[in-house]
């Protein structure tokens, strides 16, 4: 804090550099403010963060157990459905919120010097607060449905971490692209919709035609995360991600995808960071 730093600034603001502690408290503050404001002025307030996934769950649960009756063959299908909806909501909130994040913070970006990365990270953090609240509801629901706590639940935070890394990667990528191309917004809305059905949220991976199972597991990290979640948290007899993809080593493919998205996002974000303020 106290070092009289000599700084030469010719590059413009960086994505990451500067006072780390300040960046951290800034990120935290942005996320908390965003979270506070989200349901500000609504009567039910924070309850809405719960209501949205719960209502979606209610509708889907009715359709898929009463109308199509596919829930029968899956143990704890309602819990699986709710958990996967909550996780997918987290992913779509982070990435979807990330798209316009730089735009909505224009005022800050143009008037203040700070590491730009604080903005997409704060979006993810704010979504993470929501996820935390939603998971409390999921926990109550799971226990009430008879799911038994076990050691493998400790895998769950790791799965959330992987999901977070993937989502932040997309958020960085999309936020910077949106500054240049306003089409990113509708495009990403469509992509998210497709991803919702192309991921085992409503169904489990086993229900797919066998030849599709491996391909989806390899191409869609969300499928891996949700499948492993089912195995580790809900039902140990359900196939793990490694089993579904065929071989432990093949897990490197989705893992590599996550790392790749994150690195691409970080690279582009770092590259564009100094010019974000003037391009907005």
């Amino acid at each position: 804090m106290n070092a009289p730093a000599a700084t030469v600034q010719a590059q413009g603001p960086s994505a990451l550099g500067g006072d780390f502690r300040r960046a951290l408290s800034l990120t935290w503050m942005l996320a908390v403010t965003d979270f506070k404001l989200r349901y500000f002025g609504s009567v039910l307030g924070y309850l809405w963060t719960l209501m949205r996934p719960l209502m979606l769950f209610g509708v889907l649960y009715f359709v898929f157990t009463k109308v199509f009756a596919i829930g029968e063959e899956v143990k704890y299908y309602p819990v699986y459905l709710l958990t996967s909806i909550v996780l997918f909501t987290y992913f779509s909130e982070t990435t979807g919120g990330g798209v316009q994040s730089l735009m909505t913070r224009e005022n800050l970006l143009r008037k203040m010097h700070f590491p730009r990365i604080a903005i997409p990270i704060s979006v993810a953090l704010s979504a993470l607060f929501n996820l935390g609240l939603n998971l409390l509801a999921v926990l109550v629901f799971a226990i009430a449905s008879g799911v038994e706590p076990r050691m493998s639940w400790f895998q769950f935070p790791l799965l959330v971490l992987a999901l977070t890394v993937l989502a932040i990667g997309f958020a960085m990528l999309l936020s910077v692209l949106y500054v240049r191309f306003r089409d990113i917004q509708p495009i990403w809305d469509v992509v998210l919709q497709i991803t919702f059905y192309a991921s085992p949220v409503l169904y489990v991976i086993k229900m797919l035609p066998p030849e599709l199972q491996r391909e989806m597991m390899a191409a869609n990290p969300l499928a891996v995360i949700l499948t492993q979640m089912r195995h580790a948290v809900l039902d140990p007899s359900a196939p793990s991600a490694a089993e579904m993809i065929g071989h432990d080593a093949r897990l490197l493919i989705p893992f590599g995808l996550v790392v790749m998205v994150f690195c691409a996002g970080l690279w582009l974000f770092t590259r564009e960071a100094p010019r974000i303020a003037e391009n907005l």
Partner: protein
Amino acid sequence: MTGRGFARSRGRADTATGRPRPLVPFANLPATAQQPAVDHPREASTPLHAVSVEDVSKSFRLPHEQYSTLKQRVLHPRRSRTFSELRALEDVSFEVAQGEFFGIVGRNGSGKSTLLKCLAGIYGVDDGRIDVQGRLSPFIELGVGFHPELSARDNVVINAIMLGLTRKQALERFDEIIAFAELEEFVDLKLKNYSSGMSVRLGFAVAIQVDADILLVDEVLAVGDASFQQKCFDQFDRLKDEGRTIVFVTHDMDSVRRFCDRAMLLERGQMLNIGEPDAIAAKYAEINFGVVGEDGSSGGPGLPRTRVARAWCENGSDRAPDTADTFTVGRGEACAACMEVEFIDAVEDPVFLITFRNDVRHTIYVARSDLDATTGSFAAGQRATVRFRFPNWLAHSTYTLTPAVMTSDGRITLDQRVDAVTLHVDTNRITGGVADLPTEVEVERS
């Protein structure tokens, strides 16, 4: 440009301020209540400049048509490539000494704010070097990140964290901030219900808590009522006393004269001038009124050319030498404010006026020629001497006189010499007012 040579003379910036300053300006840093826990280790060995800018250029690309959707870009791949370049800054060089109050002035679009953003590191520069010694305040405007839906309490904390304070520090200083902004009764009111003056006061109150060596400030004094402005001025004085360096962008020449040790004038991205605030302010007035006085003859386009050649004061008995620009008069003395005007083109009914301003830049009196009579016509090449005779009932103080010639409707300034004359009124009677009128006192007991 004028400033180039100066910028190269590193470490001697102090001599250029024209005001005596200690070599180690922070030796006796007063401990203030505002900054209890923070101390700034300032080493005598650090270079004397706080900010050094060398040959900085910055341009923006302005696309001729804004293509921001993919479809447009795909359909017109070539067209989107055309853009014009706006040179916002061109080869700007200057140095700001540590502890200096430095003003950047210029008209709208002259590049002042761009320069400030480059200094703050918000924009990168295309060319040149910016060297900053010491911690820089991170933002350049008041109330960055204020959210209308949140209460003053939340906004103060948010704003303070953006400034680099911790949440704890922000909460500790909260009462002080609110007290300074005089908003004790409105702490829990949402910011959207604040008047604009109130939120600016709040922004200023937080901003002065900043714990930085170098403050960058963009147009802050434009708002607030007179009493709050005075408070802001006091805070600037305090920061100055603490040895902070302040770089200050403004249109307001009065605050430049009042606070700045030095100032620079930007015009179309180029540095026109750097130096004494008075000289810069005068220059600024000239470029603003379209009168370039350098060769002494040019008027604005389409306007008759006139020139205020000289201005002086006379008081009955002794006439000061022609070259003097400082005069002293006593109380009640008959005196005259005079100007000599040269008409290069013919002018019909020009208005002559001399504006008297006091040391805090309030206009005290305007002597003008158009109130009772017209002045008639002046032929090209004619010269005229104008005298405004008056008994001096001004209060004891120092005044500056700005002679000017305007068109007959009094709307357009043909030429003026800002603060051409300094007038000391020496009465040794302090009345507390700006005038010291001949007064008879009568006390009647009943």
